[in-house]
């Protein structure tokens, strides 16, 4: 096991340095002078230009620049935003809870609906339920989620007027020293209606972001269940006279879960990509919207830092999933 962990860590390090190299290279491969590009139409005075060159260290050799950058990264220094002048690191972690909250809700939504859907489909293989569920799953899988979001807004916010269109909570509520997790803060605050407001703001973004994971989980659960259901021990369990629901949900699902958990773990990338679209549409103040806004504002230090942090988060989660998987399934370690 130790050797397995070490070998995974050994592949993690070069990837990490590669990712820093890409985010380092980002500003430098921009066509034209990066500082002129970043200044945009406003332009820069020669004094400010010199100042910026010195600030970025563009006047030094590339290798030295990279070394300085890497040192900064390892110390949690990712530069400052052009627009807000705040450190990128602080901005990222101020907004990250919003994205994390949304992603967690989306994944819970996807699991709660996707697992039973997959089990029901597998048990009723080839029958009406199976076909209906799997067709819906394929539609969900093919869904352009930015359009799906607009449709839900038309129906639930426009026609029915049930849910708000944007933001995380009604402007009436404000929390001092909040944890950044709106549901949590609202639940423990004594402001009446705050929790309900937070939930109603969360519903549509959760559905939108959870749709593709839901479809993937349902499909994966079904195929894993089908494989398990043909095993001998399932026949034995049935022959013992256990009730079908006990066999399906306890004996079969438990063993079918391993591939499903892997798929869920590897979904961080999908979720973060989806968060870019979902947050932009619902004006959700998380890192997805922050990245898109920064790209449009040419706030390149933010784009650079955000790119790196997001990639590192994806890598760490994937590594953890890999290790957990090696832990659950000893066969993997041998490879």
């Amino acid at each position: 096991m130790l050797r397995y962990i070490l070998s995974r860590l050994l592949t993690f390090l070069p990837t990490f340095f590669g990712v820093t190299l890409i985010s380092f290279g980002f500003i430098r491969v921009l066509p034209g002078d990066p500082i002129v590009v970043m200044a945009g139409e406003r332009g820069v005075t020669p004094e400010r230009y010199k100042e910026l060159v010195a600030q970025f260290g563009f006047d030094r050799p590339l290798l030295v620049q990279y070394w300085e950058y890497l040192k900064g990264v390892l110390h949690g220094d990712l530069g400052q935003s052009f627009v807000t002048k705040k450190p990128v690191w602080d901005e990222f972690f101020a907004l990250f809870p919003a994205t994390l909250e949304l992603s967690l809700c989306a994944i819970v939504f996807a699991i709660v609906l996707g697992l039973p859907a997959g089990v029901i489909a597998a048990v009723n293989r080839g029958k009406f339920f199976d076909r209906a569920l799997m067709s819906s799953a394929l539609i969900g899988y093919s869904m352009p989620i930015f359009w799906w979001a607009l449709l839900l807004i038309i129906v639930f916010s426009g026609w029915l007027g049930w849910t708000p269109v944007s933001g995380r909570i009604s402007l009436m509520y404000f929390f001092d020293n909040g944890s950044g997790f709106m549901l949590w803060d609202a639940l423990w605050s004594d402001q009446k209606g705050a929790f309900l407001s937070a939930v109603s703001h969360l519903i549509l973004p959760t559905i939108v972001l959870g749709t593709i994971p839901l479809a993937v989980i349902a499909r994966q659960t079904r195929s894993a269940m089908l494989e398990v259901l043909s095993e001998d021990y399932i026949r034995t369990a049935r022959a013992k006279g256990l009730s079908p629901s006990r066999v399906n949900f306890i004996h079969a699902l438990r063993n079918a879960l391993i591939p499903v958990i892997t798929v869920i773990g590897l979904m961080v990338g999908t979720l973060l990509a989806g968060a870019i679209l979902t947050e932009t549409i619902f004006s959700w103040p998380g890192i997805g919207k922050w990245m898109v806004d920064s790209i449009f504002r040419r706030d390149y230090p933010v784009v650079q830092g955000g790119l790196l942090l997001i990639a590192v988060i994806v890598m760490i989660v994937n590594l953890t999933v890999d290790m957990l998987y090696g832990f659950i399934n000893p066969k993997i370690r041998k490879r």
Partner: protein
Amino acid sequence: MAETMTSAAAPAAPRPGRLKEFWYYFRENRGAVIGFWVFLAFIVLAVFAPVIAPHDPTQQFRDALLKPPFWQEGGSLAYPLGTDALGRDMLSRLIHGARYSFYVGIVVVAIGASGGIVIGLLSGFAPRWLDTIIMRVMDIILAFPSLLLALVLVAILGPSLTNAMIAIAIVLQPHYVRLTRASVMSERTKDYVTAARVTGASTARLMFSTVLPNCLSPIIVQAALSFSTAILDAAALGFLGMGAQPPTPEWGTMLAESREFILRAWWVVTWPGLAILVTVLAINLMGDGLRDALDPKLKRS
């Protein structure tokens, strides 16, 4: 297994017998056949768009702004699916939009697949150190969420449909590399490859004409699936303002333009998205059928 044997004997293009066999299995899957016909219709629309579309996609009818579809009050058959805020015919724009999506799919898959296959073959045949380097580079690309990386690449290259296609191709390419490399790894130790090597085939010949034809099945399936991913991602970039630029009738760009009218004119929002969904769904259905027909081992459902 039989397939491997026959193709080893004749690694050239598939013979009619194989195509027939393929169609036999493909036909089994009703969804796949439906997907195939829808996809065919999509291609016909894309190719003959100027002939089929009733109006020019960029022509603005100033007296018909935001007209609803013909079955609603105020709609007319002149603009069957209504008009947008600038008085452009929705139906004509949708039909022309098929062109862009088709173009995106073809170009992205062509670049992504050919690049990925060559790198994957190289990686599979290369000495260990080179293989490791290539795979680490692919890991690095895969560490970024694909849409985010595409977005940043477009930000570097400048927003346009061409740059969006390049960015998506770069992002999709590692999947082909991994797939090709994995198949090459399992093929290259087989007897027919050794036999070819013993008869003096060069490495290039081994790579492209001995091994590659036997690795094609999963790659074809991947090509179908990434065709739909390409369409979705290009539409998403267009929607974010980083893909095709207005007044191009690209579906994602159309959606972005329609956002401010979403509560006033449902049709401007509904049609472009529906077009994306139907196209992507058809291709995914077809992809599932392809997977089942080409490689029973991969059969998941």
